[in-house]
């Protein structure tokens, strides 16, 4: 009996170059389409149980944010860079912010930012309700 040995087939070579090409294209795509923004968060409504402690002082200070972004306390206008000094005088009081609907977000954030930097625990944002 004659045994015929079958020649072993050569394994197909998988080229890695197309894979590298695809990876490089994907990499360039993600680098071009992604934006690397440094974003932070400012809590405006903390979850229940994480709200600030009640102020030791029972006084309440109402600060209005006017349509042009300036602030007013007891009818007196405050320069934007003076808000921190004003808030520092009322550090133990409850601070109520009443922003005008026409004021911009940056104006409100400026006050919240100053309050957060001073560590004020009781700052509430009020808003006008809809007319009945």
């Amino acid at each position: 009996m004659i045994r015929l040995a079958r020649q072993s087939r050569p394994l197909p070579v998988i080229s890695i170059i197309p894979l590298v090409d695809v990876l490089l294209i994907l990499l360039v795509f993600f680098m071009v389409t992604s934006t690397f923004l440094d974003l932070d968060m400012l809590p405006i409504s903390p979850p229940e149980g994480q709200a600030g402690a009640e102020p030791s002082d029972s006084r309440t200070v109402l600060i209005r944010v006017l349509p042009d972004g300036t602030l007013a306390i007891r009818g007196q206008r405050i320069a934007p860079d003076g808000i921190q000094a004003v808030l520092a005088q009322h550090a133990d009081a409850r601070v109520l912010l009443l922003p005008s609907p026409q004021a911009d977000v940056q104006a409100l954030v400026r006050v919240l930012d100053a309050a957060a930097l001073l560590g004020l625990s009781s700052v509430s944002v009020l808003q006008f309700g809809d007319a009945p």
Partner: protein
Amino acid sequence: MTRLYRPAQKRPAETIVALVDVVFFLLVFALLIGRMDATAPFDLTPPEATSGVDMPSGGLTAAVSADGTLALNGEPMSRTALLRAAERAIGASPEIRLRINADGRTALRHVLPLASDLKEVGVREIVLVVTPDAG
């Protein structure tokens, strides 16, 4: 004269595996660190603040453009649809955080009532997206 042939030096095999490793690493890095612009389908510049804190990603993102146009997770929608979608998301995951990504020039009449309505539909934690103040 006898000629001596110098045996041809074997060139070291250039391994492409290291290159693939580096490319994979960069790809995963770009995927993880990069933020697709899906959270806002329009141009907006968040307000600046120095007291903003870094928070984990995830949750819902409501974008508000300077003229009051709304979007939720990158999809433009009406205020009613946004509130309905937020309510559905809260039903599925009650502890979900909602980020309001509003332009710094947006009038508060577009933002504060929205935040109130979101509280009413059950959103417990609302944060405002800010950029660190360069000054």
